[in-house]
């Protein structure tokens, strides 16, 4: 069982967390001018880098979305922080 660090709750079972998206993806705007291909790319395509990556995760028990930096090769968690700059 791997522990993930929620910025508010602290370390918890990995089963309490859900992957949300890769960090840094900008919402295509204005929505009316966004093509279907660009919208699909925003929703479904991910860089999926080998090594260190920054992602948005959800801690389902407290409902907090937060940033987590981790290594996709070693599974090591480098750190996490709240989206609003708290904690």
């Amino acid at each position, binding site marked *: 069982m791997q522990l993930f660090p929620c910025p508010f709750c602290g370390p918890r079972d990995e089963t309490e967390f859900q992957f949300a998206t890769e960090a840094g993806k900008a919402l295509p705007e204005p929505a009316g001018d966004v093509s279907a291909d660009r919208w699909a790319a925003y929703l479904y395509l991910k860089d999926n880098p080998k090594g260190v990556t920054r992602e948005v995760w959800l801690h389902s028990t*407290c409902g907090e979305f937060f940033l987590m930096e981790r290594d996709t090769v070693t599974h090591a968690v480098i750190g996490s922080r709240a989206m609003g700059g708290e904690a």
Partner: protein
Amino acid sequence: MASDAVHDSAAKWPVFPDWSGAVIERPGWSGRPVLGLSQVLVSGDFRAALSAHAPTAAEAGLWSIAPTDPIAARIARDRVLLVGSRPLDLPSGWNGTWAASPASDAWFVVDLEGPAVEHVIREGTAADLGASSPSAAILFAGVQAILYRTADRCARLHVESPFGPYLWRWLEARAG
């Protein structure tokens, strides 16, 4: 269609426990449902709500001891479940910077007591109970739960009401 061919789902689930007399006795611990609690979900600036309507309520995080009545179990950065043995006097709905939602029927509550309580709790989660987490919200035995203590060897678990029978069967399966 013959009557014996009709699918009967009534036997699909175990008999619902009679909570009024339900008890689990095991070496080192016992468990009882806590009936009749008043529970109110307070969201937003919950400290303003507590200051105005429950100034004596102690905040409870994971595995922390909250001997007060009522108890403010912290379940998110901006949310507590206020739990009291007497009816809680909070106006429902939006109140400026915070909101109150009656939740007495939303959560099934069980108290576990005894020197072996921590061992039972550790079977349900791998979270570090000694880490002083400010949040009592946790995944316990696979379901969303709220976990804190009302005394040194008395743990309290809240689970969403539909999971009450499941949690009870899970606890009955613990050997002690």
